[in-house]
């Protein structure tokens, strides 16, 4: 990832902020200029819930070079306690130990490594509670 992109996405990737529309009062993720539900510009940042449950999960063994660092890993579709759904890795566990509906909590981890000299990409993953 290039520095401008990392800098631009920092509030979503690092702080896990979404938006709360001040007009229709609906939440959404990621941060956008307009509310995806009612197209209002009247939005405020919102910290997402830090815990949730696994809806789907599977193994990834082949992906882009910069993401291969931890492969094979588990990728999950998680529904947070505030109803927002996000995609994230489920780490520090084994595939055979997981079942749908398990409770997870968000952790801050390394996501990508761009060679020996490139920038490291950080973001959120999930661990079992």
């Amino acid at each position: 990832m290039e520095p401008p992109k990392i800098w631009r996405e920092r509030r979503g990737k690092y702080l896990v902020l979404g938006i709360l529309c001040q007009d229709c009062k609906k939440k959404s993720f990621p941060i956008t200029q307009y509310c995806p539900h009612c197209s209002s510009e009247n939005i405020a940042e919102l910290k997402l819930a830090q815990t949730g449950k696994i809806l789907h999960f599977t193994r990834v063994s082949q992906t882009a070079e910069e993401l291969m660092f931890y492969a094979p890993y588990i990728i999950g579709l998680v529904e947070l306690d505030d109803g927002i759904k996000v995609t994230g890795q489920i780490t520090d566990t084994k595939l055979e130990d997981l079942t749908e509906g398990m409770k997870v909590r968000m952790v801050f981890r390394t996501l990508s490594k761009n060679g020996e000299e490139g920038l490291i990409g950080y973001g959120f993953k999930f661990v079992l509670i």
Partner: protein
Amino acid sequence: MSKREVYVIGYGITKFGEHYELNPSSSATQALSKAIQDAKISKDLIQSLYFGSLVSNRNDQSYIGAEASRECNLNIPITKIDVGNASGAGAFHQAFIAIKSGLLDCIAVLGTEKLSDFVNSSTLEKILGGTIDYLWEFEQGATLTSLYAWMTQAHMKEFNTTMEQLASVPVKNHKNGVNNPIAQFRREISLKRFLDAKRISDPIGRFDPATNCDGSAAVVIASKEFVESHSEIEKKVKVVGSAQSSDKISLHHRETLSSLLATQIASKKAYEMAQISSKDISIAEVHDSYPIGEILAIEDLGFFQKGDGGKATIEGKTQLNSDISVNTSGGLKARGDPFGATGIAQIVEIIQQMRREADKRQVDDIKYGLTQNVMGTGASVLVHILSNMEDDK
């Protein structure tokens, strides 16, 4: 809507597979020049070239259409249409619109892809990452395969779809592919082999995804007025429906993972345009890049009730010469999937069937044929309907 009628008057297709000896433009040129020859018209009559390709810009030369037109010695407008890995059907849709509008009368449409140049599979994974939500799915660690795994899980959970039913999709398509001379894999694979294969992204197994390969396909399309004023044109197939729709790119933003909304909307629009229903379709080429892809397609296109796709497939209701013959070409699975070429290759199969040139995979009594081309996990879907009827409504 414009009443102007649109016909496909010629097609050309290369053998799909690994062609290390061909550079990207040579493959594209082969298909384009075959299509022009098949149309029997002078190439100077072609007014414009629309081409679709997902990765041509990563084959160094971003504008493959220009090289292909140089080899065909054409000085016409060349436009690349981008609908991700559904760019072939996207280009066809735009060409259809251009003729329908009345501005143009004869257009060449080309779909092309050269994927064997990417020897490192991580490069292709990254390219496919661009067809899903790159920032919030791919960079988080998801891949196209893992997202299709979730869609498969959702369908299995909601409708009790079994692994055997899923595997019966590629079993059928490989069987059809045996008789397709341009298919990458012309051999059958047993149900047991699919079931016993190692799981790469559970429940998706090693042999389930279509392979990314090289290939090009082209068609020449023209208005009815053009066809009537050129007696050299011998064969024509009418395009009666052309539609595109979209959906949220990320699975985490969708209401359901067990259907593709974009397929439902696009097919509804295409049926309305053609003034027919799903019951009138005899043959269909659908996007079986993963087994669940075909099951979702045959349900969302209205051939079977939601949830019955797996059962219908294992019962043989989609095999050759059944009520609805699905993927007579072998589909993406056996023919191979050169992204941008796939949408045109699907249309080529329908034309071959309607012109009775499909040899051992020939389906009898075809009324209408349909194609469905999917971008990513369904962020965009194109549906085309071609008619074999002598006199249309």
